[in-house]
């Protein structure tokens, strides 16, 4: 069992079954404090009120997709520094490129491994200025990691 963590995580995903299962895993399993939103509008509202340390974000959502939500989070001075972990079912060819351009901290492919998810959330919690880490990420991306090949 991983060590309990006290970070605040906002889960944004339109699949309520998934958010429910994730919430149990993150709270009871890993000790995070969790808020849940089922679309981007709700996610944006909750982000500025709940002030999470990391946002776990789905991409394919109705009306406003995950990438657009990333952009809106970055446009708001209150939320622009919150690290974002993307968790998506669609492993498209341009996934890594889009993630890099939207300053996403980490991209996970559904279904993510527990260890992988925990590591992504833990490393994001407490990171004050994710934009400073952009150069570091840029170096990582040059090695072209493909999440689709990890499964």
């Amino acid at each position, binding site marked *: *069992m991983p060590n309990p963590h006290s970070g605040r995580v906002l889960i944004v995903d339109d*699949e309520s*079954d*998934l958010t429910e*299962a*994730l919430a*149990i*895993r993150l709270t*009871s*399993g890993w000790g995070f404090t969790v808020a849940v939103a089922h679309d981007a509008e709700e996610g944006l509202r909750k982000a500025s009120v709940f002030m999470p340390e990391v946002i776990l974000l789905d991409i394919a959502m109705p009306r406003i997709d995950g990438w657009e939500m990333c952009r809106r989070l970055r446009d708001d001075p209150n939320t622009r520094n919150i690290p974002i972990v993307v968790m998506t*079912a*669609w*492993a498209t*060819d341009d996934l890594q490129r889009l993630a890099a351009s939207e300053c996403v901290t980490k991209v996970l*492919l*559904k*279904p*993510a491994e*527990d260890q992988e998810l925990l590591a992504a959330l833990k490393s994001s919690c407490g990171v004050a200025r994710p934009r400073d880490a952009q150069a570091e990420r840029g170096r990582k991306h040059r090695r*072209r990691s*493909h999440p*689709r*090949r*990890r*499964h």
Partner: protein
Amino acid sequence: MKETISVLLIEDDPDYTLLMNLYINEACGEHIKFDMQCAVSLAQGLDLLARREFDIILLDLMLPDSQGLDTLSALRCRAPGTPIVVLTNLALENTGISAIGAGAQDFLIKSKVDQEQLRRAIGYALERSRLYGQMEGLASSAPDGIVIVDAARMVRYANPAALALLGRAMEDVQGREFEHPLPDGGASGLTLPGPDGVTTVELRQSAIQWRGAPARLITLRDITQLRKFEQIKAEIAERRRLDKLKDNLLSTVSHELRTPLSIIKMAVGSIRDRLVGPLTSDQVKMIQTADRNISRLTRILGNFLDLSRLESGNACVDLQPLDPGELIREITDDLRMTYKAKHVLLLVEAAQGLPWVRADRDMITQVLGNLLDNALRYARERVQVRAKPAEGGVVISVIDDGRGIPEGMAADLFDKFIQLDRPKGGAGYKGTGLGLAICREIMSLNGGSIWAENVKGWGAGFHISLPASAPAAAAAAGGQRAQST
């Protein structure tokens, strides 16, 4: 060989006929011979023309049954392509000039005709005949069918290609009406019985002058092969469309499966980790089985998507110069802990100074990872990775000391859903049956190859060949590497 020029003289004055016969005989030389037939009236002349063709007609305009230019018109109607030389009296010189305007090639003043003049006039006919022969030769050897019909659609000429396409002999068509409808404009298609079933013929027509009269040139082109080719092209396009549809469907279904799979995995994980309550030992066993199979399903899904992407031709291949020795060290270093945990020794034997190869690093890492993963499943104590220079590049081998590949199976291993008997029973790692199929696709995209065989003193050996990078590229990359270390 002497060439024979056939001459028709239409003249009612027997003395003049005699004179002309004399001249003609004198004009015959070493290479040329004249064959002259005489008619005393227009009716007799027309009768002769109906029975045979002449190379030239010598015509007196004043005949018992026809006078003046009407005589000329009557003859031109019957033999439109045959040149006519008009014979006139000195008093009627103007009529001769009018005759030229009405289609005669030349005129001779009867009282002034001599042997030389006659020879010149007939020479013209000879030249015309030769030119016609050339044209005929061209048309005969043309691969397309050529048919000439007159204004009444009667066939005046058909070349051998046309006769072959129409399946007719010359005597069946010449002088008869063309039996197929002519295209109104542009082209029309015609289906004819051919040697291999049905022959599709494209018909085109254009207006021409044939022997001085308006006619139609019909070309016939065999487009059976072209049609077949177009049909095959359409079939290929359709197959591609269906393949794309299949790829899209596969991709969509696979992606759609990921979300519910994610939910099940998360929920099962929470039960397994007792986040929602305590479990009996049987429940733990069951939930572990479920968990293991969720991972298996996830692997299958990932492999499925990988393979469909590779097979669709949409995969991006980033070919770069690579140091094969360094690549092997990197991969084996990453796997050393996994091998240690299973008490299998991982040996590396890379030749010194291996040439650099040109390949997609991530793809080759995936292939070698897969081969090393397989080797670990089958090995008893040891697995060896070898790298040797080979013709045109490098061969990297992954060899285990397991029981080897069953006889006759080595080539089938790379087909989809082929798995060897699992050495560790039902509870052990289960493959997806797609790993080696993916490896084969990747190697093909990298311009290399993959094959398997049993290795003496060992078990199964899997080999991949990679093409050497261009020397300049290798040197450049080598230089960069030297600077960065």
